């Protein structure tokens, strides 16, 4: 663990990503304390006000404070990220593990299934699922979770395949350890590294997908402070009040960027560690 942190620390951009992530988490938890205004509170007198000392990022057409809405928006974004990526991680790992460990026709069936899912464009697939399930925050998270399952399934399958041929798996078999135990005790813990990295990367995608789906009106209800919805509404006012769309846009970009560089850093930090262990 120390070794990973040591490697990670050396990567300044990844460190920045981690810092931003921590900041977003703090925002999400402490939103009511940090946000200067109630994100739902409308004020006709203040509508479409540009950035000022009173409203650092201005207000929208209903006079709601953009900064406060962005701060509250981290809650939705993180929630969507955690739950949907959690769904993909669990489902994908399970599929990949079973496919790779049992091989043959089990692998055939599961791999083809994930290939089919994989071949749809992300957003299109999410749209289809949302259309079936109906628009709501829960369904949105389920849809995003399903969309990113194949990536995890593939990564898990690859990792398991390489670990499955390790000598210590043969050793466990030769000692009469059961299949289930081999999967849980030997294969899964050793396949986690690439999956952890994918979690951070998918987190970014999930936030983006939530924004996109909300932008299209398939996500949360329109008055919820979600970055995607803010962006969607802001586009109508681009000419008169650019701040409504630009600030949530910056928030999305920053969050996605942070998770991405953190994931990259994590991957680099985990990699040499694995090399050391095997050589």
């Amino acid at each position: 663990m120390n070794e990973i942190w040591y490697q990670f620390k050396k990567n300044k951009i990844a460190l920045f990503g981690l810092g931003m992530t921590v900041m977003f988490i703090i925002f999400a938890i402490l939103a009511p304390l940090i946000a200067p205004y109630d994100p739902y509170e409308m004020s006709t007198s203040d509508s479409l006000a540009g950035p000022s000392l009173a409203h650092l990022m201005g207000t929208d057409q209903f006079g709601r404070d953009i900064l406060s809405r962005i701060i509250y928006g981290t809650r939705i974004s993180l929630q969507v990220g955690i739950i949907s990526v959690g769904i993909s991680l669990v489902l994908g790992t399970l599929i990949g593990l079973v496919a790779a460990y049992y091989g043959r026709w089990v692998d055939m069936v599961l791999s083809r299934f994930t290939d089919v899912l994989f071949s749809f464009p992300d957003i299109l697939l999410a749209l289809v699922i949302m259309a079936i399930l109906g628009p709501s925050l829960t369904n949105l998270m389920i849809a995003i979770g399903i969309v990113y399952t194949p990536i995890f399934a593939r990564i898990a399958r690859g990792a398991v395949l390489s670990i499955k041929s390790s000598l210590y798996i043969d050793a466990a078999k030769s000692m009469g350890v059961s299949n289930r135990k081999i999967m849980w005790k030997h294969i899964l813990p050793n396949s986690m590294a690439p999956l952890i990295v994918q979690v951070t990367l998918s987190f970014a995608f999930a936030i983006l997908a939530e924004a996109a789906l909300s932008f299209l009106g398939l996500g949360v209800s329109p008055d919820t402070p979600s970055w995607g919805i803010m962006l969607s509404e802001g586009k109508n006012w681009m000419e008169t009040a650019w701040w409504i769309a630009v600030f949530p846009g910056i928030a999305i970009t920053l969050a996605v960027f942070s998770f991405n560089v953190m994931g990259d850093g994590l991957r680099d930090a985990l990699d040499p560690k694995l090399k050391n262990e095997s050589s």
Partner: protein
Amino acid sequence: MATEELVKVKNLRKHFDVSNGLFRKKSIVKAVDGLDFTVYKGETLGIVGESGCGKSTTGRLLMQLLDKTEGTIEFDGEDMSAWSKKELNKRRKDFQMIFQDPYASLNPRMIVEEIIEEPMVAAGMDKQERKERVTKLLDDVGIPDDYRKRYPHEFSGGQRQRIGIARALALKPKFIVADEPVAALDVSIQAQIINLLVDLQEEYGFTYLFIAHDLSVVQYISDRVGVMYLGKMVEMSESDELYENPLHPYTQALLSSVPVPDVHHNTDRVLLEGEIPSPDNPPSGCPFHPRCPIAKEHCKETMPEFRERNKGHYVACHEV
């Protein structure tokens, strides 16, 4: 030497289907192609050969890590393939394996204690008994007891191999397949491990199948030695007899190819032409004929029988 049979292998074959793609030509690698031999109780049988000769596959077949294509393996008089999966897992305590690569054969995320305990957990031993057994095993293989909570990467190659040996001994097996157990180790460490293997055998009286490519190590540790080439056993005899009086031209070439760490050694080298043929397309007849210095016409057509030439000295060659 004891003459009670422990493992009896008859006409053992393992063919791997390596055709890739649906429409490609079928391609079969005959990794092991018709082996007959017996391992006697208490002895060390060495198996030597170059890469692709099938020696490791043989070890894995005996360990039931691979399913055979044909033939029988009898263990203590019982046909192993007659055992159900459950029965097999129960019987595994009698035959264990020591692996080549001490870096890859230990799970990097388990501590020493867990590694050595694993076979005991699988066999259903209780906790108290397991802890005591680990203490004894660590002592047997020369690892200080206070290292039991450490991870494999904290150990050197030689120490890891000691841990691997302790794990193989955990259930007091009768038979141990050691697949190149010292190949990955440095010379000075190799000798430590070889001594350990010899001492443990003396103390516990188990039987070894010792697979290696290093002929001098095999000669040192084995009572009898078998030489494999392209999935077939070409010669087998008592160790000293084999090294002093090799009959098969391949054994002769192999022995003479080993560089001897002695400047006064006269190398009367039989240099073999060409390379080892690929096992997915082995030559007809005797697999060694394309490289054999004494091959005759009929060697290309018929595979020579594995026959006893002198007492206990078997060889598969038409021209001997």
